[in-house]
């Protein structure tokens, strides 16, 4: 099955290259490995949206090798914060990837304090640095100069067990200085701390996912057996990010269900899943490898977000409606492939992927195709439909398999009043709802235009029918008269 798929992919890729050769430079070449999912769930080739251009390592930057770095964050002003966990330091790079400074200690009560195996970092709009200092079981909040603002220690609350262990691994903060902490071993969701560092509540717990087979065996077993089995607990989150409006995007490690969530202040999932498939990474996978395991999420502008799959080392990007845009990366030894990817971050249009075991950061830059598609999605998000129309036209010239782009074009055409053409594009994008909308308008238009003709034909038919009936009656009368005559 897999081999067949790969063979078809190769064949398609070869065809794509051939088409590229014939068609000249206009058509973007399909890179082997880049793919898209069609409406029918088939894997189809797609041009690469991102290409690896550079590899950053600690030695290369002249600051000593990174040792098991766990997280990175890009601040609003484009500074890159790398959390070098094994070396217990934070390395700050500028947007040209030159080291600016290093933070490995801070002053607390007049004494120098350090980190111990920190695993998560977040930088606020004011460039405050928040670090999940996992080894010390605390969250450290530093200001832009690296001075200590506050330390969040293990909270005491009625909501928590007596033997609760505070192990913060990922952090995020919103504009109101609330800190959201993902603590390992906590099943109740994210821990929310207020601006003063006091624990307020849990939010956005995952639902318990029960495997029917497990449930069946559990039903059959005795109480004693059951007590030794694994409990059905909600899965933990694997990562979080926060967007400009304060919504938390979170990923979890479930095998099925919604693995990406957008949480509002109440902790409800409000992610739009209007795409052909619910966003969850790969939708086709071999049972041996299993589905994508999402371990990081990054929210970009215009509601676009990307998730990192640790299973296959791929990065998937979706737009705000949940349409799958593009995929890149993978596990391997070449440039643009990783060993153990652990974090992704956007720097403007570019992507940074952090590899934990190798201690390297791969820089990905957009291709022509990726730029056009990003711009199309942005224009559409802004409501600039003319620009979106133009950009979507460009993208489908480069990738005819991008079905949601047809819908984008259709919507622009619908607004322009070209209903027949809009219907065509909605049909290509398999969008029945919008097709129906365009069709109703088109039908009305046609009927209005042809009204005189239609009414004339109807009137002629009605009169003809009446005449025919009358004629038949007369005929029958004649026949009856003839018969009577014969009888006489």
């Amino acid at each position, binding site marked *: 099955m897999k081999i067949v798929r790969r063979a078809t992919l190769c064949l398609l890729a070869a065809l794509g290259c051939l088409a590229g050769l014939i068609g000249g430079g206009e058509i973007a070449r399909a890179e082997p490995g880049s793919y898209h999912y069609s409406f*029918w769930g088939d894997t189809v080739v797609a041009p690469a949206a991102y290409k690896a251009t550079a590899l950053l390592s600690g030695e290369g930057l002249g600051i000593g090798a990174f040792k098991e770095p766990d997280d990175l964050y890009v601040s609003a002003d484009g500074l890159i914060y790398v959390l070098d966990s094994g070396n217990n330091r934070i390395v700050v790079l500028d947007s040209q990837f030159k080291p600016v400074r290093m933070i490995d200690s801070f002053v607390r009560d007049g004494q120098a304090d350090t980190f111990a195996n920190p695993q998560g970092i977040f930088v606020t709009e004011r460039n405050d640095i928040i670090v999940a200092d996992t080894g010390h079981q605390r969250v450290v909040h530093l200001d832009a100069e690296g001075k200590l603002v506050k330390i969040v220690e293990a909270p005491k609350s009625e909501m928590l067990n007596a033997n609760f262990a505070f192990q913060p691994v990922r952090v995020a903060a919103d504009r109101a200085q609330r800190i959201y902490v993902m603590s390992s071993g906590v099943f109740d969701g994210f821990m929310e701390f207020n601006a003063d560092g006091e624990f307020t509540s849990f939010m956005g717990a995952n639902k318990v996912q029960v495997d029917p087979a497990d449930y069946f065996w559990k039903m059959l077993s005795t109480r004693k057996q059951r007590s030794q089995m694994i409990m059905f607990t909600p899965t933990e989150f694997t990562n979080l990010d926060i967007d400009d409006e304060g919504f938390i995007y979170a990923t979890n490690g479930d095998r099925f269900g919604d693995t990406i969530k957008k949480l509002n202040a109440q902790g409800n999932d409000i992610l739009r899943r209007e795409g052909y498939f619910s966003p969850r990474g790969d939708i086709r996978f071999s049972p041996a490898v299993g589905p994508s395991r999402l371990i990081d999420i990054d929210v970009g502008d215009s509601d676009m977000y990307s998730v990192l799959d640790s299973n296959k080392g791929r990065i998937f990007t979706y737009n705000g409606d949940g349409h799958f845009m593009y995929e890149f990366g993978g596990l391997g030894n070449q440039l643009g492939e990783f060993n153990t990817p652990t974090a992704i971050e956007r720097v403007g249009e570019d992507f940074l992927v952090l590899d934990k075991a190798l201690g390297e950061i791969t820089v990905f830059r957009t291709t022509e195709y990726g730029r056009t598609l990003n711009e199309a999605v942005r224009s559409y998000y802004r409501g600039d439909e003319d620009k979106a129309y133009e950009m979507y036209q460009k993208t489908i010239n480069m990738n005819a398999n991008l079905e949601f782009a047809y819908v984008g074009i259709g919507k622009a055409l619908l607004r322009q009043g070209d209903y027949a053409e809009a219907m065509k594009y909605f*049909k290509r994008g*398999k969008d*029945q*709802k919008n*097709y*129906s909308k365009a*069709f*109703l308008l088109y*039908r009305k238009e046609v009927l209005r235009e042809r009204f005189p003709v239609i009414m004339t034909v109807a009137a002629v038919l009605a009169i003809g029918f009446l005449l025919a009936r009358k004629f038949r009656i007369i005929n029958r009368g004649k026949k009856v008269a003839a018969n009577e005559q014969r009888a006489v």
Partner: protein
Amino acid sequence: MSKGLFKFPLYLIVHPFNGFWDLKYERSKKANLILSMLILFLLVITNVMSSQYSGFLVRLYNPAEMNSLMEVLYVVVPVLFWCVANWSLTTLMDGEGKFVEIFTSTCFALIPMILINFPWIWLSNVISLQETAFYSFSGNIAVCWSLYLLFVGNMTVHQFTPSKTIGTMLLSVAAMGFMAFLCMLFFSLIQQVVSFFSILYQEIVLR
């Protein structure tokens, strides 16, 4: 004659009791058989055309999976299965119907599926999403009508009471499932036998 040939099926679907009686006792078997074949053929055509030409709003189909030959099988195989299952059962249950009569009555019962669905192939192209309710509604009507005709046809052909007819029809469906299972078994066994001989042949040839 030819006018009556085409008028009769239309008479039958609105007057099933008289129609099926005439079908069994009054009309020529040969003409019935020809008409039945024609009906099956038209049903196949309807199905093929509806999967190809139905409106986008009522049928989203993957062109890669569309196969006209399979559509033929989807019509012919269930009808034949039904006839064989019904015949096998009713012979044991004192049914008066011969196999030909069961076959013709079954085919005639399928007429509404053609009459209603065929115009909808084109109508479905000029409806909106809200109006697709009419499409599915009329499709359901066609199925119900056909089932009713099948019921009356079966009752008339075998001269059963209504309750007995319903019983045999349900049993026939079960028998169809059984037959499908046996067919699968048969084909998989045949496949193994064939592969055995082909391997044997290869061994001898390549030695």
